[in-house]
């Protein structure tokens, strides 16, 4: 009987596990942190889903690691090479050189995920915090740190999803430099120095650390919508079960999980930065945000085209 290992107990991994369980397929989630929910623990409205998953999914405390180009599950003293795994490790954080942020390298520069863990352990990364981020997670973390008594400034290079932000200063711009001998003293934003003792990087990239396996959620898709992230888990569940009729898709825009669909959900995720109109066969859809879940028409071949 088929059995899958899912790497990561974020909402994508949890949703895949639950969907597989429901279909009677064995699935276990490997999580190395002592909490689940990944970067969505601050996201409003997801608590009940995460709680339900905590009780229903088979989550084991272990880690997937890569040694000499092979992927192993390490659990206590035991390690075994992983097969039939799905990667649900989520976003990685953009590196400072990728963001063009240079200067000193003092203490107090944290990737987003590390700050969530610190808060989880009752610790704070600092008191005067600049968050560099262009997404709803940056805003949510800003709120949380403000609640915990920190002074927070969010610097966003493009835009920030609307989300109630109280007592948080938001600056549109870019960070170019960090200054500080031992600890962060200031960061340079739009050519001006802002005093801060902490810089949190909340700009994300999709990344699959185990490329021999298929990825779901934010390990594969640059999306910020929890509904679509969970949907990617469900869609992949049925692709793995292979419980539908094959559909071949010809698309000139990026689609997930791929050009051949075999699951009974008959669904795909279309990503289109900034939204827009697309044609699915002859039917027009409008995509709001950066992506949408599309129910495929009942044909065995589907054409998808961006419009305009």
């Amino acid at each position, binding site marked *: 009987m088929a059995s899958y290992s899912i790497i990561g107990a974020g909402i994508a991994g949890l949703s895949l596990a639950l969907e597989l369980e429901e279909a009677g397929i064995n699935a276990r989630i490997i999580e*190395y*942190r*002592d909490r689940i929910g990944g970067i969505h623990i601050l996201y409003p409205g997801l608590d009940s889903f995460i709680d339900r998953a905590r009780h229903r999914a088979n989550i084991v*405390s*272990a*880690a*997937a*690691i*890569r*040694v*000499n180009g092979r992927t*192993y599950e*390490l659990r*206590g*003293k*035991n*390690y075994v090479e992983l097969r039939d795994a799905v990667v649900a490790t989520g976003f*990685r*954080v953009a*590196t*400072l*050189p*990728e963001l*063009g942020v*240079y*200067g*000193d*390298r*003092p*203490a*107090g520069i*944290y*990737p*987003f*995920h*590390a*700050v*969530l*863990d*610190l808060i*989880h*352990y*009752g*610790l*704070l*990364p*600092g*008191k005067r915090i600049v968050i560099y981020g262009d997404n709803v997670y940056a805003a949510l973390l800003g709120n949380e740190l403000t609640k915990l008594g920190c002074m927070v400034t969010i610097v966003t290079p493009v835009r920030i999803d609307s989300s109630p932000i109280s007592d948080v200063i938001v600056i549109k711009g870019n960070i*170019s*430099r960090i*200054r500080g*001998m*031992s*600890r962060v003293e200031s960061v340079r934003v739009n050519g001006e120095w802002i005093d801060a003792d902490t810089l949190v990087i909340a700009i994300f990239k999709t*990344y699959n*650390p185990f490329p021999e396996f298929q990825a779901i959620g934010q390990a594969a898709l640059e999306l910020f919508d929890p509904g679509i992230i969970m949907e990617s888990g469900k869609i992949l569940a049925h692709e793995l079960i292979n419980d539908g009729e094959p559909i071949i898709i010809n698309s000139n825009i990026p689609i997930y999980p791929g050009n051949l669909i075999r699951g009974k959900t008959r669904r795909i995720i279309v990503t289109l930065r900034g939204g827009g109109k697309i044609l699915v066969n002859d039917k027009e859809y409008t995509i709001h945000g950066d992506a949408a879940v599309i129910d495929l028409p009942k044909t065995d071949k589907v054409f998808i085209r961006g419009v305009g």
Partner: protein
Amino acid sequence: MHLANHEYDIAIIGSGIIGLFIAYELAHYNARILVIDKNAEPGFGVSKGHAGVIHVVQPPFNTLRSKLAIEGNKLYDDVSRKLHVKLKRMSTILVAEGLTHLLALPAIWLVLRRVYGKHGFKISIIGSRELSRLEPNVKGLGGIKIDGYGVINSFELVYQLYNFCLLNGVDFLFGTNINNARISNDRVIISTSGGEYEARLLVNAAGLYSTEIAKMFGDKYRIEFGKGAMLVFWGEQTRSIVTPLQLMPNPKTKGGAIIPTIFGTTIWGPSLSAGNRDDRAVNGNDIQALFDKFKRLMPEYEAIPIKAYAGVRPIPEGDDFIITHSNSSNRVIHLIGIESPGLTAAPAIARKVIDLIKDSGIALQAKSDIKEVEPIVFTRDLISDGKDITDDPGEVVCPCMAITRSDIRNAIKRGARTLDGVAFITGLGMGICQGMCIGNAIKVISEELNIDPEKLTKSGGDSWLVTR
């Protein structure tokens, strides 16, 4: 007050690669040795800012620097074996990018063969086919291949030297500044932020601060500070050290290469620019210069840059190492301007210093019971070798580099007291995620050090990490 336990035969200022290698050599003799460093851990000065390359011959060829680099290079296989430090021997390829370079290859080969060949380093011309066989990612018309280089895990080297010294009775004082030092009745009196110490002889291996220590004995040296920026990429790009062949040496673009590290990452650099002692900031210009120089060697290759950092090196007047007795006393030995290739030369430098110590009239008697250091074995090494994990490694802290709680405990046992110390020994947080695990790591390191997380620092001093 006379404090017997503050008396030593030899005091070494500086626990960088140079100070440590000298202490390592001295630990083989019956002598009381003290090493003093202002930093929180060994190797936190000049030594942490380099790329880990073992060089061969260094131009200018007739210098002490070049001579010691050649000797040092040849000692490294032994050092690596004895101290269980990962060393990978490899070639350097100077790539001919254009037709002019290609036409010049035979002449350059003739010149270089005389210099390199004399010292036993093999040098050959390679054509475009051989180049693409050796380095599939590199674009070029051919090149010159020089054998005998290497890359080493310089962090492992630092901590293994340190542990060898500890095992064999060397004392260390960290976080300790030198306020003053003087000669009195053939003894050196060293007044530090941690009290007064006496030694029969002092070795000044203080790196960027060596001229200040020298001044305390009336010796005047001038050094300039050179900043070298490096860009680290995730993954291997080349098998050899690769750099463009330069016909006209241009000081602005001199040095640096594409370097495959021992950790499976790749370094571009270092660049070289004038700097000052306390400035380790990386500038956008430095990084642009690295891209201008190296990107054209690998135009097709896409890699993720994970980190940029800079080191500061002491560049001496006269552009050569200065290793000498003080003008005022033969009880003081200065090492001034030990810059690149100081890592390569270090084992040979240490032997030279031992000779100078003997010249000073200090009798050194070889010890009979030398204790050897055990290799540092991490969980990933056991998995890599297919061996059983016998002790419970605890939870995985950093999945990118496969580091467990027991690996952190192991690093602490080897002397790590700070987050950087643990990171240098284990590789924690040095993967592509650049520290997404660091929140978890701060908790575990604090627990293993048995301190409040608010007391843990990145690298000592005011580099606090968390608050409440």
